[in-house]
């Protein structure tokens, strides 16, 4: 059966997302190892001083480009692809999506200039009263607004499809992509409010001060669902694509997959205080409520773990796998896309455990702002998400360009190198955190580092070096594929797994949008409303800006 095909123009549009994403990743990843090397005592920053002034400027570039730009561009491209391919129709209004894309590009450039000029060394959390150049805040706003516009383009496409197919069940990958885009629309209200009502006017000199506690609250309103915005596209691939790639397996449970996406939509925003457990300005009772909601949102992740592994087991058994564990070896490990995503999934287990510990209310006292945190999010966003995206790009790039993937063996090796490097790096970071090492500190120079930390700091450096090699392999494979003259003979097949369960069994209410959206908004108002109301009522714009880097 012939698959639905995207037009050349559409492929180009998705490809341009991929291009910006990979460019950002390649620049941002240059600085990751530099932080790691600094920890191990090999400080390279003094040698690149004409270009990058400090450890912290490097850290800002690394954080903004990797955590914000690489992810956002890749995700918007992937979601757009999923919506078109899943719904088997072109975008309703391609111009709108193009406008969104270019807004994002302009925003990235606007934010990059002050960062590179050392005018915005505020790290990717940009906590005021650290005051960056106004162009940095404006750039971030444009990125967010651009992604909104692209999201609207996707929703319009869905409405048009729904008009044409009033009775049909939304195909899973389109459905899940739309939920992810919607989650993003809801949660970015926080950071948009922060920038537009406080940071931008303040950096332009229109208001004299800001309220740092309120700014943090706005930031983390977006900050946690941001994590889900990163991970959900990887989940889409794990749920609906990976089983097919791994051995023609079927998706174990369509209805539970949909249910878990709805739970993510409803629960992932109203729990931002779990990043603010140790903030002085928020009442403990609300922190506790948010911690309980965080436990609840762990639940759909457990459901995801079951469905994904069961689907993979189905694939492994189809490939002739036997026994309790032996089927794992029968998965298509030689396919770089499969290897990358499976390894990403394995490390995500540990990322999940770390996240659960962080989110456990007072347990956070042991971990807050220690090296445990970067250790944790290098397992989630930098492995579960990034390595999965790399895996996706191993079939997506050939699909978009019609070129054959260059040296698939190197691509498989790249995934394994990343896996090994990340185990060394993040294990060391987790342990350092438990020993009390703070995050965001050039620990190679810190005066209070006890000798017990040294072996772990060395491991951080080693892990960083291995990750650097892996990143270089990835970029080589991508670049050589794009430049190669060798084209694929047939159209690359988009891997979409069928459902093991008859889709006729999927309940109607899982394809209804309104109840879930109302539920999400209501819960946000309930658990954020009172605290935000108090913070805004007692707003004190008493913090002038500081430029202390």
């Amino acid at each position: 059966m012939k698959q639905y095909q995207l037009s050349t123009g559409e492929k180009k549009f998705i490809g341009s997302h991929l291009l910006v994403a990979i460019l950002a990743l390649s620049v941002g990843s240059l600085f990751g190892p530099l932080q790691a090397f600094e920890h191990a005592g090999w400080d390279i920053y003094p040698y690149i001083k004409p270009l990058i002034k400090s450890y912290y400027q490097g850290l800002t570039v690394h954080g903004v480009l990797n955590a914000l730009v690489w992810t956002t561009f890749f995700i918007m491209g992937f979601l757009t692809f999923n919506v078109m391919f899943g719904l088997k129709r072109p975008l309703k209004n391609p111009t709108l999506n193009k406008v969104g894309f270019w807004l994002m590009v302009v925003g990235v450039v606007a934010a990059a200039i002050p960062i590179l000029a050392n005018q915005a060394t505020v790290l990717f959390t940009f906590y005021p009263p650290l005051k960056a150049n106004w162009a940095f805040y404006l750039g971030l706003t444009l990125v967010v607004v651009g992604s909104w516009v692209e999201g609207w383009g996707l929703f319009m496409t869905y409405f048009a499809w729904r008009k044409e197919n009033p009775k049909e069940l939304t195909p899973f990958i389109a459905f899940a992509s739309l939920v992810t885009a919607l989650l993003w629309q809801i949660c970015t209200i926080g950071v948009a409010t922060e920038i537009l009502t406080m940071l931008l006017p303040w950096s332009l000199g229109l208001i004299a001060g800001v309220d740092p506690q309120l700014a943090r609250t706005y930031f983390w309103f977006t900050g946690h669902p941001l994590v889900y915005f990163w991970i959900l596209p990887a989940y889409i691939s794990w749920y609906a694509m990976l089983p097919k790639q791994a051995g023609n397996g079927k998706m174990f449970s369509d209805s539970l997959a949909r249910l878990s996406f709805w739970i993510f939509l409803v629960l992932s925003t109203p729990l931002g205080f779990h990043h603010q457990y140790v903030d002085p300005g928020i009442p403990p009772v609300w922190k506790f409520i948010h911690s309980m909601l965080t436990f609840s949102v762990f639940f759909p992740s457990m459901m995801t773990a079951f469905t994904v592994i069961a689907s993979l087991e189905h694939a492994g058994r189809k490939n002739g796998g036997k026994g309790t564990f032996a089927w794992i070896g029968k998965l298509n490990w030689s396919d770089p896309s499969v290897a990358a995503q499976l390894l990403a999934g394995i490390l995500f287990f540990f990322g999940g455990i770390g996240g659960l510990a962080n989110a456990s209310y007072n347990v956070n006292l042991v971990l807050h702002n220690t090296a445990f945190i970067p250790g944790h999010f290098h397992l989630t966003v930098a492995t579960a998400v990034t390595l999965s995206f790399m895996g996706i790009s191993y079939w997506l790039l050939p699909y978009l360009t019609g070129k054959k993937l260059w040296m698939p063996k190197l691509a498989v090796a790249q995934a394994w190198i990343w896996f090994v490097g990340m185990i060394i790096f993040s294990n060391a970071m987790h342990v350092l955190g438990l020993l009390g090492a703070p995050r965001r500190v050039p620990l190679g120079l810190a005066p209070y580092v006890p000798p017990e930390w040294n072996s772990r700091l060395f491991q951080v450096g080693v892990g960083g070096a291995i990750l650097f090699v892996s990143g270089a392999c990835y970029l080589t494979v991508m670049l050589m594929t794009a430049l190669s003259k060798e084209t694929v003979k047939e159209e690359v097949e988009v891997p979409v797994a069928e459902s093991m369960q008859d889709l006729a069994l999927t309940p109607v209410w899982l394809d209804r949008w309104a109840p879930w959206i109302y539920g999400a908004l209501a819960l946000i108002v309930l658990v954020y409303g009172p605290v935000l109301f108090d913070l805004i009522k007692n707003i004190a714009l008493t913090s002038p800006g500081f430029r202390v880097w």
Partner: protein
Amino acid sequence: MNKYLLNGLYALFAILIILAFAFKLFQPIKVLPRMQLAPAFNLTDQNDARLTSEELRGKFVLYNFTYVNCPAPCYNLNKTMQEVQSRLSEAQLGDIQVEFITISFDPDRDSPTVLRTYADSIGSDTKQWRFATNTNKALLKTIIGSGFETYYEDKGEGKFAFDPSFVLVDGWGIVRAEYRYHAEVSDADRIIRHLSVLAEEVRNSTGTAKLAYEAAHLFLCYAP
């Protein structure tokens, strides 16, 4: 899903939100935290009369801690006491009485006579505002330090180091507010506001409303 069930759910959510906002906007119930029990004490006031914690039951008491020979520039605590005194009507206390007590931590010099002269010199209404101390220094330290959790330290030669602080105690002898450092809002403003919140709780927390007030305590609906 059943259509009625769905509409019911919407309605439930809508009601919850309206309730939460109504509660927030009109702030029908605000309370002060119950911090700890105020210490029991037995002091001597400026008229050489006994002043015990027992006789203050049922009244709101605002305490501060200082000494007469505090050299300039000394924290001007008296001004706050006087301001609160003169603005008491704003707190709408009804028939609830408020006492003001300044405890001196310098019993060697601050005899009742000295305290009386001091009270007269700052023109205080000594019926409502009493000055007291206890000649047993160890006991005094226990009352002010362990009891009111307020710092002072004898630096010798009649000089003391201390932080300017006020403590508000309710009629049940429970500390409900401490004013340990200058906040954005002036101490007097906050004390007046807190007195009215406390008075409201005393007046209203009877019968069913008591449950609502207990809920307010449970959910930490504290007045700023």
